[in-house]
């Protein structure tokens, strides 16, 4: 018998007896013979726990982690520090082995955590309301675009080319099948081209999607964009880095209608791209168009404060045929991690992480551009990422850095062919002066 299967042979016999079956085979008589798999599955194992552990460690050792390498790579996944208690608390198995909180009386832990998560995401973004999380930043952005299409009743959305390339790709995949046109607005000098935006935003445009800080780390001037968007009665969608909101003005201050973003940097490990969490927050006007699960406060029959899933009328299991979103499972555990992270960092910590990241990124930029070999690609205010350009190809720089166990930047020419030799670097609070100086020193001689 297997360690995960408790029934013994004797149990099996007794159970079959009570059912009135002679063998397990009797329980599968309903599967036609010609559909039965006539061979054994060609899958290795079973492995004992020790064998498995050795195999997995060997496999993982073919990877280099950000403990092996000094990470200056960002572009959508970020190497911020994760306090020890985050993982300890998220590994409470009452949290991670539970299902979606459909039975609220025995799910108050999960429900209250989501309520607190909702409160903190609203504080961070300045918005009225948020849901219990989406799959990731990219799909959250898609859901926001669909909200815009549904509420404006128009059939096109505008997205800035300074929005993360993956986000734009996911947006296009989804919208292709919904017959919604996705129009990209060009950039000028690393930011959304305001004049072009103005010319594109017409009566067919349901929403405008801007990333801020944008893919190049640059802080977009939202004031003008907000005027253009709202003058056209379109929905303004902002894709934001939650850490940046520790120091930057909140999207609500700019009059944004829907705020989305990738929540990985709120305490979630990079884990080769997932699982992360997307967040989506909006104003009360659009609240009922918001997809996903939402937790509300109520009382139980004894008048005790209690939490419960609410606004379910929007959920897919009720609007089966008219659903505008099909999300069911979301990222509960990742939202829990984000909640623990935000609680741990608190009012002062979120600010300090953002401030240190910004200061170290600016120090790195200054060190790297000192001799003139590397120049800032765009001379614009930035947060924790910045793009450099030089006469050296970015793959060559990264290869050279890897020799020194440094994980270099993101080569921009993959997504922006016109930005040949562009290299996007990221500096978080984890980096030290010594590591940054080393980076500059190595890059200088490649």
């Amino acid at each position, binding site marked *: 018998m297997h360690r*995960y299967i408790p*029934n013994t042979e004797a149990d099996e016999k007794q159970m079959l007896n009570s059912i009135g079956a002679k063998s*397990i085979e009797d329980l599968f008589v309903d599967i036609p013979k010609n559909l039965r798999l006539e061979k054994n599955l060609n899958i*290795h194992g079973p492995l004992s726990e020790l064998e498995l552990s050795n195999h997995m460690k060997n496999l993982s050792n073919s*990877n*280099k982690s950000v403990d092996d390498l000094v990470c200056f790579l960002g572009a959508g996944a970020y190497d911020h520090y994760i306090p020890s208690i985050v993982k300890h608390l998220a590994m409470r198995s009452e949290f991670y082995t539970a*299902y979606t909180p459909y039975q609220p009386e025995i799910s108050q832990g*999960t429900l209250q955590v989501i309520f607190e998560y909702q409160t903190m995401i609203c504080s961070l973004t300045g918005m009225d309301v948020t849901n219990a999380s989406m799959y990731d930043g990219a799909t959250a952005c898609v859901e926001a675009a669909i909200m815009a299409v549904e509420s404006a009743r128009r059939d096109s959305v505008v997205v800035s080319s300074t929005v993360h390339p993956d986000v734009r790709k996911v947006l296009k995949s989804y919208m292709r099948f919904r017959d919604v046109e996705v129009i990209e607005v060009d950039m000028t000098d690393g930011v959304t081209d305001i004049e072009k935006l103005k010319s594109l935003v017409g009566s067919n445009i349901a929403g405008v999607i801007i990333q801020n800080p944008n893919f190049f780390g640059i802080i977009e001037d939202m004031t003008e964009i907000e005027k253009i968007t709202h003058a056209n009665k379109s929905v303004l969608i902002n894709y934001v880095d939650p850490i940046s909101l520790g120091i930057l003005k909140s999207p609500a201050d700019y009059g944004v209608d829907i705020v989305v973003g990738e929540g990985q940097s709120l305490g979630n490990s990079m884990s080769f791209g997932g699982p992360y969490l997307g967040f989506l927050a909006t104003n009360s006007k659009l609240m009922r168009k918001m997809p996903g699960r939402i937790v509300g406060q109520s009382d139980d029959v004894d008048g005790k404060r209690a939490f419960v899933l609410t606004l379910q009328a929007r959920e897919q299991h009720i609007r089966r045929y008219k659903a505008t*979103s099909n*999300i069911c499972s979301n990222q509960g555990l990742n939202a829990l991690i984000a909640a623990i992270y935000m609680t741990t960092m608190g009012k002062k910590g979120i600010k300090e992480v953002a401030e240190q990241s910004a200061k170290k990124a600016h120090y790195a930029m200054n060190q790297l551009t000192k001799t003139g070999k590397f120049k800032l690609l765009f001379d614009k205010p930035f947060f924790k990422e910045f793009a450099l350009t030089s006469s050296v190809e970015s793959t060559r720089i990264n290869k050279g850095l890897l020799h020194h166990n440094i994980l270099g930047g993101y080569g921009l020419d993959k997504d922006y062919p016109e930005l040949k030799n562009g290299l996007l670097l990221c500096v978080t609070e984890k980096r030290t002066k010594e590591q940054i100086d080393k980076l500059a020193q190595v890059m200088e001689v490649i």
Partner: protein
Amino acid sequence: MKDYNSLIFELSKEGRKAYSLPPCDVGETRLDSLIPSSFLRDDEVDLPEVSEVDVVRHFTNLSTKNYGVDTGFYPLGSCTMKYNPKINEDMAALSRFSDIHPLQPEETVQGALELMFNLDSMLSEITGMERVTLQPAAGAHGELTGLMIIKAYHENRGDKKRNKIIVPDSAHGTNPASAAVAGFEIIEIESDKNGAVDLEKLKAVLSDEIAGLMLTNPSTLGLFEQNIKQIADLVHEAGGLLYYDGANANAIMGIARPGDMGFDVIHLNLHKTFSTPHGGGGPGSGPVGVRKDLVQFLPIPTVEKKDAKYVLDYDRPHSIGKVKSFYGHFGVAVKAYAYILSMGGDGLKNASQEAVLNANYIMNKLKKYYYLPMDQVCKHEFVLSGLLDNENHVSTLDVAKRLLDYGYHPPTIYFPLIVSDAIMIEPTETESVETLDSFIDVMIKISEEAKENPEILKTAPHDTNVRRIDEVKAARNLILKWDKNKQ
């Protein structure tokens, strides 16, 4: 700690903190000398100010108000709440899996790519498909991805009129929702009296506008769809494709494969069949598998093996594109991969056999007390239709709530929609006969209480942290976040 009832915001006190960071070592600069002050916030984000011990006790106390698979029996139909092995958590947390950046150079992530490549092969072998993508984040996301592939397939053939998807009325709620999101019109067909696909009704709706049929097998009633070959032939003859919802795959591993039944596109739920934890509502993972000629439509990138190296392949002109950032829930994939190796091929088959045995065992013991509409051998789960001889009008909800008092997570209730007062029970293979017997005893006891003392059911639960919650109040008087000014 039953009475712990504080929100973290109520514990906050100015000046407390739970974090520490090294001093900033790149010199003292004013932030507004780096970033124009018009971009900077004037206030601070209103997050809690608490000590580290406060954080630890708060979340620990909250966790004790939850019920997980580690707490007890969780026979939640359609959700496959099997044991989530601890070693898998350890493996996913290995630093060289969890602390790798998705955009690292390929030569520094060979182990991760190899794991993804091998998991693709394993899942393909289990389902009888050609290739599997790991990109979809959850079951519903897998459905959407699969439907996009079906649409891309028809469009690629120049057939643009196929804008309808057939969904049986017994389907999971996400099926029609996913079809709607993928831009399809939904044609619902009524099931026959056994909850199976009605062949005549299917024939009546098949046409050259049908893109495909979505089906789960075993059905949501826990019964194997015996006419599956005929169904597949009919749909294929009409030019449509067959989509397999893998929510119920725990019944058939190593026994029958959707690929051999005639399914063209499938998804699996790693968080059901392959033991990865549900996380209180995610993260899931919904890999999608396809037959050979549909591989070209899979999302980018795929993982390929070239000259003994693993690479990410983005050069796939017919791909539907990306459905998610990066490559999917890698951390979940690690756990599923570890699970499959722990079980081995024969172990997976045995898991399905034991899951089916456990379900039939409970079904046979309970059918004297609860109404069993389809009295035949079931697969990994079965559906009851309320209490037998229910003169006191005790509802399925009351039965479920009373189970809470006895320390069980209730079964799925009021689903599938085609069975009235449905009670859907899925024990999984990781439960012992003793656990099943205790549960059966309690279910029988509840059926007796329904006759003798129905009030105790109608007012249940009595022994939980909170009792029945006023959902109407929650929806009418919306409180969706803590408001400092309203305290």
